[in-house]
């Protein structure tokens, strides 16, 4: 089935079996292997990408359902080199094996947008907003991204540093 979407600003047209997930389309058909297949069941978050600015599990979505969508993968978070968040991950040693890192980066980028947009979370004291990136909010909002090396201290430090530096970062990165 003919499917067209934009990935990291580049229009792509593919002829896909409807069974192909968005993750497999990105990795196997477009050679964008940054997004990782961890559990392939939506439990680990390694496949997290942004669709029209929102984070989703690419493994639990059919590519043919994304006709016309704007998709951002880890390869597209920065136009040249590293985004500030990516640099912060390096600085804070926010990885060991690195397999979850693309998903962590995409998810964290979206979390900053969600906080800027005033979305509440399970741990928010009030539903009225606004919200700030506290350690508790971060842990809750990033709970869909598992790091089996347990590099959470470094991951959290990197995200908190960027969130504190510039709350408008997420919008600027889009």
């Amino acid at each position: 089935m003919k499917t067209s979407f934009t990935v990291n600003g580049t229009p792509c047209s593919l002829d896909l079996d409807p069974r192909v997930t968005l993750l497999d389309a990105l990795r196997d058909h477009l050679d964008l292997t940054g997004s990782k297949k961890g559990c392939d069941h939506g439990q680990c978050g390694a496949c997290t990408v942004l669709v029209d600015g929102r984070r989703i599990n690419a493994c639990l979505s059919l590519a043919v359902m994304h006709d016309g969508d704007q998709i951002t993968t880890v390869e597209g978070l920065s136009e040249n080199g590293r985004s500030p968040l990516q640099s912060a991950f390096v600085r804070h040693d926010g990885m060991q094996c690195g397999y979850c890192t693309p998903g962590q980066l995409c998810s964290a980028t979206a979390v900053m947008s969600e906080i800027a947009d005033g979305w509440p979370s399970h741990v928010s004291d009030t539903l009225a907003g606004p919200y700030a990136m506290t350690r508790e909010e971060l842990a809750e909002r990033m709970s869909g991204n598992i790091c089996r090396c347990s590099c959470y201290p470094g991951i959290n430090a990197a995200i908190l540093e960027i969130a504190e530096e510039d709350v408008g970062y997420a919008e600027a990165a889009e």
Partner: protein
Amino acid sequence: MRPFDYQRPETLSGAHVAARDGATFIAGGTNLIDLMKLEVMAPDTLVDISRLGLDQINTHEEGLHVGATVTNSDLAADMRVRQAYPVLARALLAGASGQLRNKATTGGNLLQRTRCPYFYDTDTPCNKRSPGSGCAALGGEMRNHAVLGTSDHCVALHPSDMAVALRALDAKVEVEDSDGTRRAIALDEFYRLPGDRPDQETTLNAGDLITGAILPAPFGGRQTYRKVRDRASYAFALVSVAAMVRMDNGRISNVALAFGGVGTRPWRDRDVENLLIGEAPSQKLFDTAGDILMKDAVLYDGLEFKDTLVRRLLTATLTELTQ
């Protein structure tokens, strides 16, 4: 995954035409695609309803109308929901992960399947997956299973947080049949008990399409959703409660309580509410409410903890809301 035909209609009538020979509707797909990968479900035709304009939240004569493809994220973030239906916003935020809430929809959440591990394991018998084959959970490992509404054929738990809040809110499911006729099904009438046909989970007919949910204006008072789980985030409920309580002159004048993690469907027991209405809050009252709630519970090995846990949650929640 088994091969299937994929259709993406642009109108509701087109969706019914595409599904006329039997089809499975897909919106977010976060549960369905997983089940298709495992070949627990193998639809011949998938009809994608994500582009039918069912993604709006509108005011309604009864309160609020939530389109079937409104995502869990959008519903939880909607300021009208946060202000008037905090029990629903809290239930949604207690469920799944940020990524999943961005895809999971209102209609899909209502129809999500159990997380009973034997339902997902096609090498074991399961009356829900394969009617008449037996139940591997009975006599097997039990933890995330139901204690209320079970039968000798099935002990599978309904996993939703959202639907528990909707049941407390007396929500209705808006459905359009294949002729285009709409009707509203009270959530009380929407889910079936498993009985001897656990594969039949709702009162929907073949060809019915959920178009939305209707949320009546809640009675005044306080609302909360409390969820107990094995880890602090991103886990299904061991026990949860959606609670709305109104107090007048030190007495409970109105109450709605629905429970997750205990029933084969989002659980609500009017006898519990009738006991509480008109009474002043006390530990003795809450204990009696727990007795009524759990009077027909079947506690298989491994599930005994739910009896204690749900009573404590009931007490903690009612204490909080009646203070």
